[in-house]
């Protein structure tokens, strides 16, 4: 598309649905689990059988409040409404949701780059079942048969609606990934987009730069990953700009993102939009958490990702490099920051602890339980003192995690990781230099990066026992003495 994109601004608001990590469903006692045989995890309530009634799950309310507090929302007395529409996966042909009185409202989310996105509301509602259309194009209208699985029916959701404060696909991505970190950190949701426990719809519009009124928006659905979110927004903005440049108007409608073709297509127009006939759910009473409950939820929250990242940054001395910042994000996202904090407290260099946590520990999260934080911290210190080479330190961490041992010094000894004496290192370096005269000549002529080549050779010869730093020091000494 050849359009003048620079004279337009994209305006995005996101609606994020996340499944809550409750033990049971929102209105009945069925377990809230994923991946069971179809229609085995159901009861009269979540199947909407005649005569059944919903009873609100207080754990779901608590998790919703956690999300609200983490997003700086006000928690207010709220109520439930029925959203009426016919669809086979909707057991009652209405969804119980919150309408004009959501439990959380008027919050905001601060992104790592410091920008703020307003959060209009974060309300509770129930999930639907899952329909599989067999035959035809996989859509309901052309299908030969439709199969419905009600296991998901009644699973608790919180829908988080942002203000139209987002201005690019990249910022939308940052918003969703920060939101995901918060959901995970508050243990409210697992935030897995690929399993559908976190689902994102984007409202996209464009307007000429400097305009104060919003353009006509389109709602884009079926965004199953951060990648499709960014792509779909960029595509949709470009499509709308092209329409405007061609003198056409953007129609308000719901559009479907197709990952394969990389484009959006119309699902239904404004005229075809449902009239949901919202009205207060008479089977439920008002939900008004008292101050004590709200306070106890606030207390249980713990520090949020932004504060935890700030803590790591301060341990790094306040101005981390780009790669270090990526390690900070990953470490907090994976809940590994406690390792770095503990190691730093014990006197280990934070940067090294961060590197080991975000690489070696992060690559084997399943074994995290067996890793003793004190042992991790000792290992990092041994490495920083030069008692262990980096290769050895990584091997020790792997061993600690796979066996649950808590004595890194003994582990290193058992593996034969004694620090090599300066004499032995000098011997090995001299051997490596004599074996590779060409490379040595280039090193001497100033190709510093060839030190890596020699480190590799020495490591190979010593089966990783040598310390890289010592090798470099010996190379420098040799080169200086040859220059004399």
């Amino acid at each position, binding site marked *: 598309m050849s359009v003048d994109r620079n004279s337009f601004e994209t305006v995005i608001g996101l609606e994020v649905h996340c499944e809550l990590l409750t033990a049971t469903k929102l209105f009945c006692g069925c377990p809230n689990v994923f991946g069971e045989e179809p229609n085995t995890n159901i009861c*009269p309530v979540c199947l909407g*059988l*005649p005569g059944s009634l919903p*009873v609100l799950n207080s754990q779901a309310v608590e998790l919703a409040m956690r999300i609200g507090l983490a997003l700086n929302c006000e928690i207010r007395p709220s109520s439930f409404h029925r959203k*009426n529409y016919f669809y086979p996966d909707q057991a009652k042909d209405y969804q119980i949701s919150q309408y004009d009185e959501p439990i959380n409202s008027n919050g905001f989310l601060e992104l790592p780059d410091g920008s703020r996105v307003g959060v209009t509301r974060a309300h509770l509602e129930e999930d639907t079942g899952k329909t599989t259309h067999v035959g035809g194009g996989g859509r309901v209208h052309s299908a030969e048969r439709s199969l419905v699985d009600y296991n998901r029916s009644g699973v608790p959701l919180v829908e988080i609606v942002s203000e139209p404060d987002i201005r690019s696909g990249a910022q939308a991505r940052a918003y969703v990934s920060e939101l995901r970190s918060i959901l995970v950190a508050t243990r409210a949701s697992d935030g897995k987009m690929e399993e559908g426990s976190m689902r994102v719809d984007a409202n996209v519009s464009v307007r000429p730069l400097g305009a104060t009124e919003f353009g006509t928006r389109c709602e884009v659905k079926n965004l199953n990953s951060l990648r499709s979110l960014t792509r779909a927004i960029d595509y949709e903005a470009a499509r709308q700009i092209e329409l405007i440049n061609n003198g056409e108007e953007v129609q308000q409608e719901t559009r479907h993102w197709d990952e394969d073709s990389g484009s959006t297509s119309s699902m239904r127009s404004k005229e075809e939009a449902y009239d949901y006939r919202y*009205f207060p759910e008479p089977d439920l009473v008002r939900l008004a958490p008292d101050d004590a409950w709200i306070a106890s939820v606030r207390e249980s929250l713990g520090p949020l990702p932004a504060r935890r990242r700030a803590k790591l940054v301060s341990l790094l001395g306040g101005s981390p490099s780009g790669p270090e910042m990526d390690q900070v994000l990953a470490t907090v996202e994976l809940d590994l920051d406690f390792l770095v904090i503990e190691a730093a407290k014990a006197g280990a260099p934070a940067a090294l602890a961060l590197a080991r946590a975000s690489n070696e520990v992060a690559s084997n999260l399943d074994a995290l339980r067996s890793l003793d934080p004190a042992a991790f911290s000792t290992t990092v210190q041994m490495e920083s003192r030069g008692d262990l080479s980096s290769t050895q330190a990584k091997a020790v961490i792997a061993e600690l995690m796979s066996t649950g041992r808590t004595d890194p010094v003994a582990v290193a000894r058992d593996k034969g990781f004694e620090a090599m004496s300066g004499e032995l290192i000098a011997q090995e370096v001299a051997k490596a230099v004599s074996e590779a005269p060409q490379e040595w000549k280039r090193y001497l002529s100033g190709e510093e990066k060839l030190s890596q080549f020699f480190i590799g050779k020495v490591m190979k010869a010593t089966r990783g026992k040598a310390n890289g730093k010592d090798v470099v020091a010996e190379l420098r000494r040799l080169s200086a003495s040859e220059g004399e």
Partner: protein
Amino acid sequence: MSRGLPLDAFTIASEVRSHERSARSVVEEVIESIERGDSEIRSFVSLMAESALKRAEVVDEIVANGCDPGRLAGVPVALKDNLCTKGAATTCSSRILEGWIPPYDATVVEKLRDAGAIVVGKTNMDEFAMGSSTETSFYGPTRNPHDTTKVPGGSSGGSAAAVAAGFVPLALGSDTGGSIRQPAALCGVVGMKPTYGRVSRYGLIAFASSLDQIGPFARSVAEAAALYEVISGHDERDSTSLLKSEQETTEEALTRGVAGLRVGVVTELLDAMAPQVVSRVREAADALGLSGADVEEVSIPELRYALSAYYLIAPAEASSNLARYDGVRYGLRVDADDVASMNAASRTAGFGPEVKRRIMLGTYALSAGYYDAYYGQAQKVRTLLIAAFDKVYERFDVLVGATSPETAFELGAKSSDPIAMYLSDVCTIPSNLAGHPAISVPFGSGEGGLPVGVQVLAPALHENEMFTVGAVIERAASDARNVGEAAT
């Protein structure tokens, strides 16, 4: 008039508990009398002979073991067919629920069982409880045992008729706008609607959730009170269920007497009623005065708007409650080319005209652009009505008035005129909108010698004052009957 077992619930229970009579023999007799006598009245849509006999044997065994099966030991009870019974068809007298067998019991059914009562069958009703004559049933109308050319009232007409005919001493119905009290009045039995939230709605197939309440039918106030006590109480499966409040037993209330009670006779519940109905209500009020109550007439003008508000709120909730009957999961399915057409075809074939009319009314009332003018406005009227009641109850303990504007009418008389049919509930609807308890007690007869019911209304949670007054009216009716019989 009695075609069945003339015994009252207390006699049956005491005889079963004291080995004088077996529960099995009671059930056998009841089933036999229904099979013999119900072909004309058609108060039942299904009998549960097998499970009832099995249950009776369990009750007898408990007695044989020297234990107490409960205060309703061996008492046969009929259930309106909108109360879920595990393993037994529950139809709401609608074709749309054809073939559906509930996998669970309603809370009231569990409570009946725990009290030793025995469910013998399911009674006919207006389809989804929408009607005042039991004529909109898919299974055909029920007839009034007092005069089989007349309707029994509705929507719980089957339960009212079953008790009036003497098939069972007790029955349960549901009351959304008068569906217990109006048929009770027309059939000459006691029918009561508890305070909203007193009785769990779990397992009651919803018509209008904010108005529906399950309640008892009996031939006496005392039996109705006993059955109410058995089925009421907090249920964690119903979020609108009230927590149990400390209160005296209904037994004490029944014998307390009305001396010093302030009774208001409501002008709007007498206006435009059939003359003989008005006379009976005034006689009942006089009897209360003679028994020591302070009786005074009172006008509550807001009552005039209750019917209009009700016919927006109830259909609005119904339009949503009945959406689930879509042919997808249970009940009738009429196949078609795609899902939406299958939904439409199933609903078209499965629902009768009155149900369709109310679904359309309710859908319209909730539609974008009409919500504020209809549903929203009706909710405001409801709020005003509650405030008006609150104000009147500062001066009165209970209120009395007619239950039904007239005695039982001819079958078919109002079938083609929905508004005339809706007006049958004009006296009963206010209590549903307010969530208050009310009872209809038979008091003499009106046109054609047919029964008249006097209604006693009380504020929320004041069932006992209502029972106290009901018991006195009942005694006065029996005294008047004895005097009348002595005179002839």
